[in-house]
């Protein structure tokens, strides 16, 4: 499926990542990474499992602090903010976790209402309008009274999405929104991401390794591996990429720069020798 992609209003960069370095224990996760996320665009971050894509989202949201480098969100260096300013900035950022991260002791309605109740003083009547509107946007208005345990994975994710847009944020980060979904749910999520981005003037960051799905809705792609950016560009540019590595990844080839065989001694000697 091809979507008409929004080219973005101007070159305004909402999030600027410069020289990002981060290690976990002795493992280097990021080694000097530069990225730009344009306002109003859908930017995708792809790469093999375990390269730290989720870590990147946590760094942007200041749940983790980098060893070096800076992340500027809407003109503010997010890691230099005090707790109050940080919380204010976070109210304008929405995040969709892989598991949905719904609060299990609240109904769907209360989950979506949660950020509104926490951060605003709106009357219950107004809250009800807002919550039902958000649920309607994701197609789950009828599920308002269900508990999270009664939802399928895909539905939980959509509720989490409704919650993420509850306070009309300026951006949303999606952590593996397509993983483990059947084709229909996949299509639903893709439609939602695309429509919300355009209708609500959002900036979206999608972390995923579902190449085909992401390529069809993203405006710009980054491919990360081994702590560095291997490739970046629009989906068209990526298709024509020269790099062996990018070609293996984007086409899902089993062997290439990322080897099929785990390093092992010679087969013959292993079987018959020593």
């Amino acid at each position, binding site marked *: 499926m091809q979507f008409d992609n929004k080219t973005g209003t101007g070159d305004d960069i909402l999030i600027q990542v410069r020289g990002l370095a981060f290690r976990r224990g002795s493992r280097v996760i990021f080694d000097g990474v530069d990225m730009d996320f344009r306002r109003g665009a859908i930017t995708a971050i792809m790469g093999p499992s375990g390269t730290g894509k989720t870590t990147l989202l*946590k760094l942007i*949201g200041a*749940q983790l602090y980098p060893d070096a480098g800076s992340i500027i969100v809407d003109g503010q260096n997010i890691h230099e903010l005090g707790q109050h300013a940080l*919380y*204010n900035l*976070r*109210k304008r*950022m*929405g*995040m969709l*976790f*892989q*598991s*949905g*991260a*719904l*609060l*299990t002791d609240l109904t769907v309605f209360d989950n979506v209402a*949660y*950020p509104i109740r*926490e*951060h605003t003083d709106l009357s219950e009547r107004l809250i009800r309008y807002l919550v039902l509107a958000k649920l309607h946007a994701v197609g789950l208005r009828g599920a308002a009274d269900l508990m999270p345990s009664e939802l399928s994975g895909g539905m939980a994710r959509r509720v*989490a999405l409704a*919650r993420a847009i509850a306070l009309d944020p300026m951006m949303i980060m999606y952590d593996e929104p397509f993983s483990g979904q059947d084709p229909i749910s996949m299509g639903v999520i893709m439609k939602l991401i695309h429509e919300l981005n355009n209708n609500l003037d959002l900036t979206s960051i999608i972390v995923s390794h579902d190449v085909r799905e992401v390529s069809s809705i993203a405006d710009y792609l980054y491919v990360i591996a081994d702590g560095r950016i291997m490739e970046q560009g629009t989906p068209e540019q990526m298709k024509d990429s020269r790099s062996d590595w990018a070609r293996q990844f984007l086409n899902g080839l089993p062997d290439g720069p990322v080897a099929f065989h785990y390093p092992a001694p010679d087969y013959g000697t292993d079987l018959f020798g020593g």
Partner: protein
Amino acid sequence: MGELWQRLSAPFTALGRAVLQSFERLGHSTLFLLQVIKGLPAILLRPWLVVQQLYSVGVLTTVIIIVAGAFVGMVLGLQGYNILVRFNSESSLGTMVGLTLVRELGPVVTALLFAGRAGSALTAELGLMKATEQFSGMEMMAVDPYKRVLAPRFIAGVVSMPLLAAMFSAVGVLGGYVIGVGLLGVDGGAYWSQMQGSVDFTDDLMTGFYKSLAFGFVCTWVALFEGYDSVPTSEGVGRATTQSVVHASLAVLGLNFILTALLLETS
């Protein structure tokens, strides 16, 4: 030669590392506690959260406390009579049951049962919330999990413990009465008057009360920390729950000794 040295020193290195790690963990949990305490004033804005937690921590533990208290009191009645009758002092049964419960068994056994039932439930709940990224979700929604989730549970635990310990002792004393007076023929009047004569309000009852407050503090702290700090996998949550009960129980017993030594008046 070098290898032999390594083999010999290995258990010592392991021990040293374990000791350092436990200090680190203690420090980590203390910082955690300070964060929780910092979040306490916020619960004044949301008393309903505390009420909810009082229900799951206090009300739901009441049944096991009362049943245990009754049985312990009855056994004290039986054993106490059995021992005292040898010295012809069975009329002092009230004293024995009253002092044993109010000073020691009430606070301590309640704390151990609390750690097992309410403490493990808290740890499991928090571990599960961590595993399903609910804390991360809250942080990203600019909600402080310390204020919203941890502080209410902490207050509920500290408040519930003395109430539960009192219920345990009260039911225990009645249980002792039922067995001692009802079954074994100790004089009813002597049971109560002897007890009243020897259980001192300040020295015995209040120290028992302070003990149970301290136990509530420690048990809830351990339960919350183990849950919040758990490894977010199903295996990790299981391990955290077990550790929570073990650590809390040992802490209660150790603290009991220290408190008893401090508070026991040698007059």
